[in-house]
């Protein structure tokens, strides 16, 4: 039951591989569209700098004040500023630096981790 010829196998392989490509290319298009929609939102905020920025600045200032009010933990090397970087990514970067320099993490001091745009990287 289920015996197939070599020719059948060849045809099924070709069709199957093509279907995987088609489905994943469609998914790629969907993801691209989602990304474009997200970027459009970004463009709107950059064309109209006042749109939503004031509120964000207020939030950032409030967050900074909250942080400044908190006492530093014992044994800390001081504060680390994260700019457009999530804590998880920062932790990964710090671990990579510690590994690449072969220095224990508690002997390194990070002051600022900033995510650069493509244009800034090219500069």
């Amino acid at each position, binding site marked *: *039951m*289920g*015996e*197939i*010829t*070599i020719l*059948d*196998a*060849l045809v*099924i*392989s*070709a*069709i*199957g*591989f093509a*279907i*995987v*490509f*088609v*489905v*994943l*290319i*469609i*998914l*790629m298009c*969907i*993801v*691209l569209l*989602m*990304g474009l929609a*997200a*970027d459009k*939102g970004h463009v709107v905020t950059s064309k109209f700098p006042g749109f939503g920025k004031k509120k964000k600045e207020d939030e950032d200032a409030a967050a900074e004040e909250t942080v400044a009010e908190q006492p530093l933990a014992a044994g800390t090397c001081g504060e680390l500023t994260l700019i*457009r970087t999530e804590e998880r990514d920062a932790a990964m970067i710090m671990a*990579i630096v510690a590994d*690449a320099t072969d220095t224990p993490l508690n002997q390194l001091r990070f002051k600022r981790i900033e*995510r*650069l745009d*493509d244009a800034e*990287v090219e500069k």
Partner: protein
Amino acid sequence: MTFSLASQLLGAAGSVDYGETFEGLMESTGFLNLDWGNVVMIVIACFFLFLAIKFKFEPLLLVGIAFGMLLSNIPGPISDWIYHPELWVGDEVASSGVVDYAKVLNEGGLIDILYIGVKTSVYPCLIFLGVGAMTDFEPLLSNPKSLILGAAAQFGIYVAFFLAVCFGFTGPEAASIGIVGGADGPTAIWLTKALAPDLLAAIAIAAYSYMALIPVIQPPIMRLMTTKKERAIVMKPTRKVTKAEKILFPIIIIIATCLFLPSVAPLLGCLMLGNLLRECGVTARLSDTAQNALMNIVTICLSVSVGATAHYTTFLTTKTLLIVVLGLVAFAFATVGGLGIGKLLCWLTKGKINPLIGSAGVSAVPMAARVSNLEGLKAKPGNYLLMHAMGPNVAGVIGSAVAAGFFMAVFAPMV
């Protein structure tokens, strides 16, 4: 003689026939029921345990698989209490095409009960739920071209499928063997239990063993197919993905994929549900359970029950040897496919994409991405490709699920 004398002496005092009792006990020990196949399987099981414990070869799965294999191959009527292959792949089941679950519950042993989860696809799907909850799709969302690399790396599946048919396997069996090239254990188990249940143990063991051997299998192929200049390409940081994109991704993907290939719904549905639990931000407890407790419980049940199906009567065959060889071929060609399209994309983008990330399209999250990263670092210190390789890596999970769904749609009616 001794037994009958003892029986006469002791029998006079009571109603128990000690002679018959001792004879029965002797006959039920493993020593009198030992077969060469049992010995070979026990040695193989111990070898797998050694590999898992000493060399950490996929230990979370291989320890359970090897122990299940050990349990079901101990000679004697221990199998009466553990596993009954005839309940799952016997002549009665083959002729009717239906498993009698009432009989399984009445007469089955421990592994038979656990095996219900494999047979009904519950375990592979729950594993995918956990995988989804553990997977961050951000690298894929920030670089959608990763999906092409994830598709290209499924090349090995179809090469192995074609070769398996050439070697005389039936279509459903060849499909189950080919899916090993997807480097995705739950997907391989999900497809094999439906299309070729008698090959389940061999295929599961081949899939997980080769996944553990990815750091050995892939690097020579990667160096053979790429130049040092290509391997040293430093890729630009990818764009930032918004929270809304991460939440919408599993919802849109499951709708789109299931519209094209409904047979893939159980696997991808669980993968995307797990990811939604992770990303939506309001189900942290469920996400935590899916990633840890549930995943661990299902892994134990799945590995032990799959291992126990490797009884020597069905495992020690030339088919198993062929599956092992074809599995290696599948992995090698999957790497070749990913690297080939990686090179093409590198050429099309004028050297902006490092072709090494293509080999990560063979699923095996995150091992294959780590191998790409390591080879990038060897070619140029500081060339960290991990985040770039994670895109094709998670795309490979979707790609192999789609390939399995296609095989299921084609061959399930034939079984």
